[in-house]
């Protein structure tokens, strides 16, 4: 919401500092995003009164003016080329030495032989519009020599407020002024309309004491009146109005103004609208927009002559009914939408946008002026269904002031009559089948103190709340608080407590730490598990990555997003590896060769007929040199290979899924799987196929599902005190015999004396039969209780070797 400083000044009757306004609003009301000065470059321009106009001696189209610009030296001579210059009128005057918008610096110079002291300016020259046909005639009482920006309301500030969704009252100048009055002091009074007078005919009564204090209908009855009971139709000045959808339009008012003359608006009105970035259109539309931004009451003026049958019918749209909206598009309506129709067809999508047919045009003379409250949810659904929003729909959706409608309509009529002429022959019709009243909420002062942590005097509570339009009366030790209808957000006691806190200022409350009781919630095991895995993988030298969980499908059980941003990102990831691989390719594209990434993230799966599942997955990708190169070791270090992957996988499985075993993959898959005790595969590791540049090293990946169970505490094993006996054995393994089989047989045959058993070499070639391979192990024997004798070790090893030959055909290598 953009508000104008000057507009606020007019409502508050006092000058304002835009920075201070921004600061106070931010600290007490709503954040101000920006303060934008308007026309700051007109500071050199003065008010000049033309005393006399003579013809230029040497040029037919130029005139020679004597201008009073307030200077001590008396009037100055100015050459002027504008056809509209007249003696006795006031114009913007740029003296010699002044800089104009665009950087033009005025110098004293001769024009056709006559010296000109400065310049009388057009709107275009001042950056105030496109009009360059003549100089800008000013309607101001400011004395000559005054600064132009002080005399004419163009130098202004736009204050851009980030209005929260629950505060529709801040979507107009009056609402913002009300808040400023509460925090800066002062009262809000609607400025009189220039040339306006109270229109003929009365208006409906309504409003509260607070409303009256702000220049509404004088107090009298505090309760809103019920002007038409349960009546849902009526006739106003020959126009029949039928409210057939009171659910969609709980209150509906119509006025008929006859004999208007549609024309451009006067300068003060276009100035106001321009100051908040609104484009002036014509006097009628500008008047309704002015009321919108002054009072937050959307109004719709339409051409009576274009109505079929002089009727206004408020009803739900019929299925498939069509309307061409102001933007020229044909819209198809549904019965969920409220429309304003004439006797035949819809002319307005209620609260959203009117049709091109019924729009006010230069030919319009008789106006139908609608002032309505449309049901917020209805408007929201319509707006979303049609993907069409407007200043009006924005406000109806948030809820406008239902009780303020008569005042707004009265002021709108006054303004239209003032700027466009015409006449109101009959009071407006007010269809309000179920009149509402302001709601009352009870506030306990002790609850204020309890929740805010600091007592606030009842007098202060009353003062703060009254300042923004609440009405308070003590009742049974509590305060009965009447809530103005422009505050739909205030529905319960705590909302009033917030009002007290923010108006007092959040900074007024101390921030001292007070004692607290420890909570009952233990740390989530997921978080502990994730932290454990992350730390472990970082220790392995891997960098943590975060990838987008949105991407292309990855198998039939990928979860689909119903409303994706793009077709490429229409699925949730099922695994982390595809995303990490894309990151590797991205790194390759940036000439990074050594890439070791891991991720701990959520993955999703949906099997048909079951709900969406999600769990945490752990994945890593590895490619490039095994260690950073060092000058002492030559240029090229070995790249990571499948055995680096295996070790990373074993460690990752140990971290993420303790208790699972790593086994070679079967069934044609290359690499390894992590298997749970029950046989379920919870992880995989292997080489990856990626779009790799020629210089890239082989790429490997692993992924394992994170288990929430932590590792059992490690139980201490006493350190050995006896010395070990070491033996190296070189074995010849027939094809198809694995190291794991050898280890198992050896361990079983030798028994607990065999403490460690590590491969230190593999060999194929001369001396080994074809299809066989030589594998060498380093064995370490130890008895925890005593020193082993050499003969015992030899005997144990021989037992093992015999079993190997017997069971696997593995023999000791000769020589």
């Amino acid at each position, binding site marked *: 919401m953009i508000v104008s400083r000057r507009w606020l000044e007019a409502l508050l009757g006092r000058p304002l500092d835009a920075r201070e306004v921004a600061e106070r609003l931010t600290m007490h009301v709503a954040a101000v995003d920006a303060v934008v000065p308007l026309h700051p470059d007109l500071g050199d321009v003065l008010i000049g009164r033309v005393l006399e106009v003579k013809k230029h001696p040497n040029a037919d189209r130029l005139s020679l003016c004597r201008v009073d610009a307030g200077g001590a030296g008396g009037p100055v001579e100015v050459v002027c080329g504008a056809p509209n210059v007249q003696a006795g009128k006031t114009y913007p005057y740029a003296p010699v030495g002044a800089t104009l918008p665009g950087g033009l610096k005025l110098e004293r110079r001769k024009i056709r032989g006559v010296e000109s002291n400065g310049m009388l300016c057009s709107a275009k020259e001042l950056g105030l519009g496109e009009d360059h046909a003549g100089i800008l005639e000013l309607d101001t009482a400011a004395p000559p020599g005054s600064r132009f920006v002080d005399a004419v309301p163009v130098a202004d500030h736009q204050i851009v407020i980030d209005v929260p969704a629950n505060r529709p009252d801040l979507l107009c100048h009056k609402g913002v002024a009300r808040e400023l009055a509460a925090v800066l002091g002062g009262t809000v009074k609607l400025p009189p309309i220039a040339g306006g007078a109270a229109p003929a005919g009365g208006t409906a009564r309504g409003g509260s004491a607070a409303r009256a204090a702000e220049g509404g209908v004088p107090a009298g009855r505090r309760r809103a009146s019920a002007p038409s009971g349960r009546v849902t139709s009526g006739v106003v000045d020959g126009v029949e109005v039928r409210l057939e959808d009171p659910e969609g339009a709980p209150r509906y008012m119509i006025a008929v103004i006859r004999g208007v003359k549609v024309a451009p608006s006067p300068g003060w009105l276009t100035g106001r609208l321009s100051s908040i970035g609104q484009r002036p259109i014509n006097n009628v539309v500008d008047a309704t927009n002015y009321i919108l931004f002054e009072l937050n009451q959307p109004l719709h003026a339409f051409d009576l002559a274009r109505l079929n049958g002089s009727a206004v019918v408020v009803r739900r749209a019929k299925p498939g009914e069509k309307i061409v909206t102001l933007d020229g598009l044909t819209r198809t309506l549904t019965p969920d939408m409220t429309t304003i129709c004439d006797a035949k067809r819809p002319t307005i999508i209620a609260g959203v946008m009117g049709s091109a047919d019924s729009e006010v045009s230069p030919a319009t003379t008789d106006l139908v002026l609608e002032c309505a409250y449309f049901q917020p949810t209805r408007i929201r659904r319509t707006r979303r269904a049609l993907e069409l929003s407007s200043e009006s729909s924005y406000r109806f959706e948030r809820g406008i002031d239902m009780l303020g409608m008569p005042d707004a309509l009265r002021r709108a009529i006054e303004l239209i009559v003032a700027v466009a002429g015409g006449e109101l022959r009959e009071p407006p019709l007010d269809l309000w089948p179920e009149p509402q009243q302001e709601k009352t909420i009870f506030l306990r002062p002790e609850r204020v103190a309890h929740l805010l942590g600091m007592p606030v005097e009842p007098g202060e509570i009353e003062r703060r709340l009254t300042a923004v339009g609440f009405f308070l009366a003590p009742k049974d030790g509590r305060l009965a608080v009447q809530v103005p209808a422009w505050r739909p957000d205030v529905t319960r006691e705590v909302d009033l407590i917030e009002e007290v806190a923010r108006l007092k200022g959040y900074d007024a409350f101390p921030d001292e730490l*007070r004692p607290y009781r420890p*909570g009952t*919630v233990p740390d989530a095991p997921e978080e502990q598990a994730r932290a454990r895995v992350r730390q472990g993988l970082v220790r392995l030298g891997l960098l943590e990555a975060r990838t987008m969980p949105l991407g292309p499908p990855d198998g039939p059980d990928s979860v689909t*997003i119903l409303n994706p941003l793009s077709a490429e990102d229409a699925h949730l990831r099922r695994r982390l590896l595809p995303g990490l691989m894309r990151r590797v390719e*991205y790194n390759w594209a940036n000439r990074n060769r*050594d890439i070791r990434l891991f991720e701990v993230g959520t993955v999703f799966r949906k099997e048909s007929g079951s709900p969406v599942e999600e769990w945490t997955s752990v994945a890593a990708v590895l490619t490039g040199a095994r260690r950073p190169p060092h000058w002492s070791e030559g240029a090229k270090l070995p790249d990571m290979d499948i055995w680096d992957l295996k070790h990373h996988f074993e460690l990752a499985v140990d971290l993420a899924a303790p208790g699972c075993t790593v086994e070679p993959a079967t069934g044609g898959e290359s690499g390894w799987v992590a298997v749970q005790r029950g046989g379920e595969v919870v992880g995989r590791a292997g080489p990856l196929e990626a779009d790799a540049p020629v210089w890239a090293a082989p790429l490997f990946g692993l992924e394992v599902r994170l288990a929430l169970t932590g590792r059992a505490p490690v139980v201490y094993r006493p350190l050995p005190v006896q010395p070990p006996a070491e033996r190296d054995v070189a074995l010849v393994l027939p094809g198809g015999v694995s190291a794991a089989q050898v280890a198992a047989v050896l361990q079983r045959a030798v028994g607990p004396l065999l403490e460690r058993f590590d491969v230190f070499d593999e060999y194929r070639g001369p001396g080994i039969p074809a299809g066989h391979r030589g594998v060498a192990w380093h064995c370490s024997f130890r008895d925890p209780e005593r020193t082993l004798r050499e003969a015992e070790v030899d005997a144990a090893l021989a037992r093992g070797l015999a079993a190997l030959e017997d069971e696997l055909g593995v023999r000791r290598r000769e020589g």
Partner: protein
Amino acid sequence: MRDLLAALAELRERLQEIPQADERRLHDLKTEILGRKAGALTQILGRVPTLDPSSRKEVGAAANALKLEFAAAIAARERELKRAAGSVAGLDLTMPGRAVWRGGLHLVTQVVDEICDIFRELGFTRAVGPEAETERYNFFALNFPKDHPALDAQDSFYLGDDLLLRTHTSPVQIRTLERYPPPIRVVIPGQVYRRDPFDASHSPVFEQIEGLAVDEGISFVDFKATLATFARRFFTADTRVRFRPSFFPFTEPSAEMDVQCQICKGVGCATCKQTGWMEILGSGMVHPAVLENCGVSSERYSGFAWGMGPARIAMTRHGIADIRLFYESDVRFLAQFAGGVR
């Protein structure tokens, strides 16, 4: 006997060679003199039992003494040589050291941990919840009115009729309140999703940290104190903090917390749009409707809650202008925050 004593004397001469011997020579000397089979001293000692008893004692004692002397001299020289090998004399110490790969946590993870650790000092444990949520948890139990403009800021990805990717970590407030009795003090880090196109300042997926404290007698003062304390511990002890009104359906009163701009220290700069302040988190007192929706008495209990974006905080603190860097996973970017050279 005499020849043995002469041989011993001759061997003793060779003690002098030891202090000059290099590693290889020392090894040879050791074998030559003390070797288990052919060592000169070993052989002499082997002959001692053959001597007549009168000279056996004299020769034996002399040979053993010399053996000890050799052993001591060789050991001393060995230590000396080892020390010399570790010496840096004559080396160009500006040459690069031998490195190992350094891993590191993602910057966002580091900031999440840092924030959660500060709150742990203030009594908050870590809780989590699912990323695919129902509308009840994501919106309605949090007091979002149905069909209200407040929902617009939470444009969401839907997975089914009543299943969406959570737009904030706040649903975990509800899950925690439903599962545990007060007092509750938790922080809830996690990934959230908004239907925003990916650009320099928006990501459809980002990390959030939620916080919730509920107990008897928790007030606005406790709320301000806890969050201001966090800010002063996370930034600097003298960081200025301000609270200002805001709106969230699930808090009342609602507040934004700003901290003094860390770049300009409050003077005003481009980063803080000349305001001198940086918005850090949205927060407020837990709305009584939220407590009631979870079956917790709003008369007896009160509390506060907040949510913040660690990625955004990291961006302001570390001078990162584009949020996409966090997800590109360029190893050069990641390594900058891993504390290593590579």
